[in-house]
């Protein structure tokens, strides 16, 4: 059986902006692994293939071990086509031993489809869209209310429970790295995994009394760090006297200090210094300046809204939502982010001493309290190249082409904010 991951709905994937601007949804994290890894682990396919919106194909291909947007992967085997938004457990609804089946959402979006190899011959499959349309015509789709991820904050809110579940699934436990004394492990050692190559300095507390703690290979934990489970720290991260509260997932190569709680950091990002990050999702190559702090709870305890498109607030239904911050964004020292802030990708924020607006578009230069065009995207690309080279990663032409596409995609929100910014500047 071949699993085919789908992230081709250009509208619905925008609900995961700014994180999905630069990656397929299946690369987003929740718990210890990505959404794609969870679907693969659940299906145990012989092969996996993937389809994503066109502008993301070259960069996704460059880092994926799976064929991407290759129509040859739509033939020659039983196919299990799955939306990247589908929660892995939802696949229990599909009988992969039975006849070809298509399950859709109320609006007709194909959430998953099981197509037997012998049925493929009579379906059109020149493109993924054609195959899905052909399968819907051939197999009479069943409308099901299957659990899906709808927004980026869904992942943050589900993270603590998912961490506990994923830790159990790894079957890992014990100390394979080095822990220097004095230090303390609270709770059961069975709920702690310290991978080979980890170095835990003296005066570190790992508290697994309320959930498991998984430190991946090569993690370095500096003195006076406290790590509360459930928690996952990715390969080669460095924790710098951090107060790592429960529910944290940190991808590879991050530097984290200060206080962090129930947040996800995709990878390669720095939150080196003091400042609070709570119920946030931070992309890759982000740098949060010293004392950058986000609010994740309103003073009246009402549910938090997030403005994804720069216009209409969306009620998250949760009283705790912090910031969603896109790749390559940098904040200055002392940046204050409001509850439920949307900070686009490739943005540059200079603090004003006040909480920033709740929506900062991608590629915006937030300076003197307003959104401006700043020095333009060329300067941002130069900075991105430098940041990546510091971690031995290369900025490629494919990266630049992808970001050029993101620049165009996000222009309407940014242009409107820049126009408003100019008017505000003129009034000052």
């Amino acid at each position, binding site marked *: 059986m071949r699993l085919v991951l789908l992230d081709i709905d250009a509208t619905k994937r925008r609900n995961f902006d700014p994180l999905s601007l630069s990656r397929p949804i299946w690369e987003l994290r929740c718990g210890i692994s990505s959404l794609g890894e969870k679907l693969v682990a659940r299906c145990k396919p012989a092969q996996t293939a993937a389809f994503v919106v066109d502008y993301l194909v070259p960069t996704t291909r460059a880092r994926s071990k799976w064929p991407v947007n290759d129509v040859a992967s739509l033939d020659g085997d039983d196919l299990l086509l799955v939306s990247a938004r589908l929660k892995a457990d939802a696949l229990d609804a599909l009988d992969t031993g039975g006849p070809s089946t298509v399950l859709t959402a109320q609006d007709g979006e194909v959430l998953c489809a099981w197509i037997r190899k012998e049925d493929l011959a009579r379906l059109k499959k020149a493109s993924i869209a054609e195959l899905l349309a052909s399968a819907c015509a051939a197999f009479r789709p069943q409308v099901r209310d299957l659990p899906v991820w709808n927004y980026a904050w869904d992942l943050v809110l589900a993270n603590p429970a998912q961490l506990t579940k994923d830790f159990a699934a790894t079957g890992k436990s014990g100390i394979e790295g080095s822990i220097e004394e004095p230090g303390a492990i609270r709770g059961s050692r069975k709920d702690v995994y310290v991978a080979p190559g980890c170095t835990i300095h003296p005066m570190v507390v790992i508290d697994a009394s309320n959930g498991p703690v998984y430190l991946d290979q090569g993690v370095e934990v500096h003195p006076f760090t406290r790590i509360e489970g459930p928690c996952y720290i990715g390969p080669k991260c460095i924790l710098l006297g951090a107060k790592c509260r429960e529910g944290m997932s940190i991808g590879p190569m991050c530097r984290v200090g200060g206080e962090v709680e129930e947040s996800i950091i995709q990878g390669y990002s720095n939150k080196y210094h003091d400042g609070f990050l709570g119920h946030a999702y931070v992309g890759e190559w982000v740098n949060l300046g010293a004392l950058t702090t986000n609010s994740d709870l309103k003073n009246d305890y009402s549910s938090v809204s997030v403005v994804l498109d720069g216009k209409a607030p969306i009620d998250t239904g949760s009283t705790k939502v912090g910031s969603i911050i896109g790749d390559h964004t940098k904040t200055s020292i002392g940046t204050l982010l409001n509850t439920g802030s949307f900070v686009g990708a490739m943005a540059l924020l200079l603090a004003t001493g006040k909480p920033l607006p709740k929506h900062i578009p991608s590629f915006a230069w937030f300076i*003197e309290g307003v959104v401006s065009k700043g020095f333009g995207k060329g300067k941002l690309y130069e900075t991105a190249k430098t940041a990546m080279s510091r971690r031995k990663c290369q900025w490629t032409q494919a990266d630049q082409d992808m970001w050029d596409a993101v620049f165009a995609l996000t222009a309407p929100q940014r242009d409107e904010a820049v126009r408003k910014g100019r008017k505000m500047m*003129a009034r000052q």
Partner: protein
Amino acid sequence: MATIEERVKAVTARVLKVDADKIKLEDSFAADLGAESVQSIELVAMFEEEFGIEMEEEAALSVETVGSAIEFIADVCKQQGVEA
């Protein structure tokens, strides 16, 4: 109606807090008028607002003197069909 030169000098004076009468065409925004990088961004935004134009930021920020800015803005106005 004020000329492009007068309007550029007025905006420059307001943003950089200098006397408009003392601004010369050969003055460099940074070296002579003291514009810091953030103020350069503000200047570009204020010229756009003043003239109702959109300037390509990297090209605009490469303009160094007041005289060059006047020529640059006049050119953009012409290209974008804006009467200045």
